[in-house]
Every structure is written in structure tokens, then in C-alpha cells.
């Protein structure tokens, strides 16, 4: 008797089953995009908080009204010009910081009528109830970008001396968090902290 081969399993419906599963996963998939702008809210004020006097020239006021128009330092401004204006204000360095040091890393105009020192410069953001969330986020984004731009420039300057050349501030932070980064993390942390101290993010929101 001739040897009979084992009958082949019919795999014709395999594709159908796989398609069924595929369609299920296609429908339920949401590519996660969990990224955003990190902020820290101020704690509820303690009842007896001493009034701190801040010079008017050290405050950069940004107001977004109910029609999403921008009022920066009492003048109407387009969103695209906000970043530049904020950088000019922060990097002005017209005076001295609380310890009486001049800002030797500032590249601004050193205008006496603008901010004294990045350490003292405060951006005050105010919005109305009718302001749209999209406009608010755009403004937040531009202000964060202003700080990031200044920090990036500074990072390229001092990073080269500390052995982190061609690394801007955003990349430094990313590398610091990255477990696979093979460099001296403590040194990197010191550089990041120095830049953070030189350009502290002082963004206050009026409630």
C-alpha cells in the first residue's frame, strides 16, 4: 500500500481570523500623545502674607481679553511678536540683581526703563473668563519658548566649556532624563541648574 501523506490543514480562513483581530485593534487604537506644557500652580496663600513691592519696570504684563486680543505692556500686540518682546524684556539686564551683581551674561539693550536682571524680571499673565483656551495655550507656549530660547543660547555658550558642546538646554534636559545617556550626569545637572538659576522661570498668573 502506498504511503499516504497527512492531510494538510486548511489555512484558508486564517486570513479572515487575522483580519477580524486586525480590525478590532485598528478601531480601538488611540495613539497616545501624552505631552504638554508643565506648570506648577501657586499654593493657596497663607493668610498673613507680607506685600512684596516689585518695581513696575520689572513686571512684563500680558493680558488676553475676551476676544483673544493680546495687550502687552499696555499695547496691542500680535501673538507672533510676543516671543521677541518677552526675550527683550527678560534679557535686558539694565540694573543689578538682589545681591547687587550686574547681569554679565545678558545680551539685551541694558535699557534702564526695562527689567533690571533676569532674576528679578517677572512675567505677569492675566486672562478673562471669556478668553479661549486655545489663545491661552498659545500665549503660554510663546512665553515658555522665550525662556527656552534664552536658556538654549546660554547652554550653547557654557556647555562648550563644560564638555557638552552642541547641546542646547532642551536637549540637555532630555539627556538628563534619558537613562541611556552615556555622559557625566552630575556635571550635566550642574550645568542645567546653573542655567535655571541664571534665567529663572518667573511666570505669575493673576487669578
Amino acid at each position: 500500500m502506498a504511503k499516504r501523506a497527512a492531510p494538510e490543514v486548511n489555512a484558508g480562513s486564517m486570513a479572515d481570523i487575522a483580519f477580524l483581530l486586525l480590525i478590532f485593534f485598528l478601531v480601538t487604537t488611540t495613539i497616545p500623545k501624552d505631552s504638554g506644557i508643565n506648570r506648577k500652580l501657586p499654593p493657596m496663600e497663607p493668610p498673613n502674607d507680607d506685600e512684596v513691592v516689585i518695581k513696575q519696570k520689572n513686571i512684563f504684563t500680558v493680558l488676553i481679553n475676551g476676544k483673544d486680543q493680546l495687550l502687552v505692556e499696555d499695547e496691542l500686540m500680535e501673538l507672533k511678536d510676543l516671543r521677541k518682546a518677552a526675550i527683550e524684556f527678560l534679557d535686558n539686564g539694565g540694573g543689578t540683581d538682589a545681591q547687587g551683581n550686574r547681569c554679565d551674561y545678558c545680551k539685551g539693550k541694558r535699557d534702564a526703563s526695562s527689567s533690571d536682571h533676569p532674576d528679578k524680571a517677572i512675567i505677569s499673565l492675566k486672562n478673562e473668563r471669556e478668553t479661549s483656551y486655545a489663545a491661552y495655550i498659545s500665549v503660554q507656549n510663546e512665553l515658555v519658548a522665550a525662556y527656552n530660547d534664552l536658556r538654549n543660547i546660554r547652554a550653547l555658550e557654557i556647555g562648550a566649556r563644560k564638555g557638552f558642546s552642541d547641546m542646547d538646554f532642551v536637549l540637555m534636559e532630555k539627556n538628563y532624563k534619558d537613562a541611556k545617556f552615556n555622559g557625566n550626569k552630575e556635571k550635566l545637572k550642574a550645568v542645567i541648574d546653573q542655567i535655571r538659576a541664571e534665567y529663572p522661570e518667573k511666570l505669575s498668573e493673576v487669578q
Partner: protein
Amino acid sequence: MSKFKSKKDNALPAVNTASLPDIVFMLLFFFMVVTVMREDTLLIENRLPLADQVEKLEKKYPISYIYAGKPAKGYENLGTEARLQLNDKFADIEDIQAFINSERAAIAREELVDFLTVSLKVDKEANMGIVGDIKKELRKANALKINYSVGTGSALDN
């Protein structure tokens, strides 16, 4: 020479579909790997605004989500004003403190409680009134680490 040749041989040969399952399985595995099941069913419209100075939300810390936006299709009877959604249902502003407390209680490792980040997923057409109210309640609940969830793109296009 082809005495036994059948007439059928002139027809087009069938396309070989033997590798079709392999291709489909490949796609299937891709989608299985990237799939994250939705944590909450959205009852509101949720189109996030765009920004380019974004930071990744770190998954190693606990995250709570607060959604806001105008009611989605099927919930039109609730009006067109932006509403708040916590977990799977509509909520009022006053519910936020209780929500944060329950989220804190649900964190298994106690040392991470202070690192709770609240991710605000707010529709871009919502107005700041509701966002301001949310922030006020979060301050009362002492949940100060927040993250405005945004899509990636140019902020000037908003």
C-alpha cells in the same frame, strides 16, 4: 503530444494568497503593540490645542486626567457650554477635590503621592472660565503639578 491536456490550462492561474495571513498578522501585531486602550470614554468634545514647547508627561509618576469641553453628540441636552468630565461621567467643579483625594488614595506606593500630576485635557474652544475654576479647585486640593495636554504643532495656528 498533449493528448491529456485539459481545456482549463488556458485560464489564468489563481493568485497565490498563501502569504496573505502573514502580512495581515504583521499588521495585527503592529497594532496590538501600539494600542493603548482608552482609559475613559469621552462624553465631551476634546480637540486639544497645538503648541511646540512640549514636554513628555512622565509615566513613572501617577497621572490623573481631567477633561473639559462641550458635550459631545448625544449629550446635546446638556447645552453647549463647556462641561467637566471626571472618570466616566460629567461632574461639577466642586467634585474635583473629592476626585483628587480618591486618586491619591488609589496610588499604591505612598512615596509617589506627592508626585501626582494632573493632566488637563481641555477642548480648544472651551473658555478660560472653566479652566480657571479647575485650577482654583486644584489649588484648594493642593494638587499643584499640572500639565496642559496639547497636540504638537505650531502655536500660531491655533
